């Protein structure tokens, strides 16, 4: 049984800049006071997630909605085990596939085929197994002879085809997705949607962060609205989308009529 349970989870990260990244300045600050000390500890703490409590169980298709900077990607990274919470707890069980960046591990100097093996490696799939899948993945990408060229020659749409094909070659128990499909062309998007149908069907939990309300209504049954790192609304996906649109309209209205 896969599950993801968050209890009072917060993620706070310090943004180091300039002086606070310097060992020399840190050491100097210890011996002097005043301005040098201020420089050395010159860091801003960003609270990306604030006291989040959430239960995600088998069968949940959760949509993450919110403005840019609301904390969607941070939440996905916490669920993926990439960011460790600074407060609170995460209890999780299950095989996770985090599709947060379609091009992770892709090497621009390597050919498309080599990158398929490489990307698979970052998904914890042994190269031997990946090699047996290369042909089916190559066929899905429809990139033909370009697969033998270095990926630095690819357009962003081609990179997405490659990245998506590899990332979706194995169905996981928990699938975390940050939206990056929008750069694909129409025929690819259609193909991707058909694959997503089979893919999402066999994964037990899906968490998808997206701005596309169509995608959210289609794939998700639950939704949460994030605002400044807090859950502002949760419930049925349609209700949460309406709440978000309502909040957006309200802010737009407030801006238009000050």
């Amino acid at each position: 049984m896969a599950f993801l349970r968050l209890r009072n989870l917060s993620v706070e990260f310090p943004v180091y800049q300039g002086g606070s990244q310097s060992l020399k300045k840190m050491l100097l600050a210890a011996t002097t006071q005043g301005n040098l000390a201020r420089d050395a500890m010159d860091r801003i703490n960003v609270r990306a997630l604030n006291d989040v409590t959430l239960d995600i169980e088998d069968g949940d298709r959760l949509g993450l909605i919110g403005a840019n900077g609301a904390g969607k990607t941070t939440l996905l990274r916490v669920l993926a085990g990439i960011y460790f919470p600074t407060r609170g707890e995460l209890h999780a069980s299950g095989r996770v596939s985090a599709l947060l960046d379609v091009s992770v591990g892709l090497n621009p100097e390597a050919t498309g085929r080599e990158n398929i093996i490489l990307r698979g490696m970052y998904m914890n799939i042994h190269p031997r197994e990946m090699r047996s899948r290369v042909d089916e993945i190559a066929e899905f990408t429809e990139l033909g002879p370009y697969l033998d060229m270095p990926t630095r020659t690819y357009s962003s749409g081609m990179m997405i085809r490659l990245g998506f094909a590899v990332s979706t070659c194995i169905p996981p128990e928990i699938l975390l997705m940050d939206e990056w499909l929008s750069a694909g062309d129409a025929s690819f998007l259609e193909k991707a949607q058909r694959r997503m149908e089979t893919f999402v069907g066999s994964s037990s939990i899906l968490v998808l962060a997206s701005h596309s309300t169509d995608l959210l209504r289609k794939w998700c049954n639950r939704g949460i609205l994030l605002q400044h790192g807090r859950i502002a609304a949760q419930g049925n996906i349609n209700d949460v989308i309406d709440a978000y649109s309502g909040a957006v309209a309200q802010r737009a209205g407030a801006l238009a009529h000050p």
Partner: protein
Amino acid sequence: MSYRSADMSIDFSKRVSPSAAAWDDLVEGMSKSWMWSAMAMQDIRMRYRGSLLGPFWLTISMIIMIAAMGLIYARLFNMEIHRYLPFLTVGLVIWNFVSTVIIEGCQTFLSAQNVITQVRMPFSVHAWRTVCRNLIVLAHNMVIVPLVLIIFNVPVGWTVLLIVPALAILTINGIWVSILLGMISARYRDVPPIVMSFVQVIFFVTPIFWPPEALGVWMQALPLNPLFAAVDVIRAPLLGSAPLTYSWTVLLIVTVIGCIGTFALFAKFRTRITYWI
């Protein structure tokens, strides 16, 4: 068709102490040898893609350096060429490994920034990648050693087998150095250049291009320099002699202290690394 696990399966349902989590990380990292060895090979292939001789460029440049230095410094130190050149060759090959592991160790997590922030994997995998990559380069450079030993008729006995445990110890040291310096450099960005300067200075005070005998009675104090101990335990068996007394002792002490100290820091700060880079 059966499916293998995609990504890393996480089971945070049991609460684990930081030390247990750090230990799990080290064990899991070491077990993923197919992953870090493939990454290391990839690094090497990419570094030399498009070049004619590949990693053997390093070997060539080393041969040139040895030839140039060998002729002049043998005269300077009043050593015969047939004794000095093998000494210099082996010393330089090992020093190259040790110094590069230390310098590249600083970049362990920094260079893997995009991977660390996108994919969950044990942090120690990156350390193994650094060390493995340098072991591959060492293997390429070691090609010169048998040549030089044969050309200069160096008597080599079964003591040469001692290089196996010596390399094992150096590998372990490489891991803790990569993790420790990797963490410190991720937090304090001016550490890599500091380390680089340090290593350069140590090169001059370690008998690599000058013979330890030149120090006379001070020679016995040499093993206090752990980098000398590291070079000595491999160089001496290859040249058919024994390492200086205490070289192994110093090396083992440094290994133990390094491993324990790094483990303590790793346990404490492992969860912060992602936020530092």
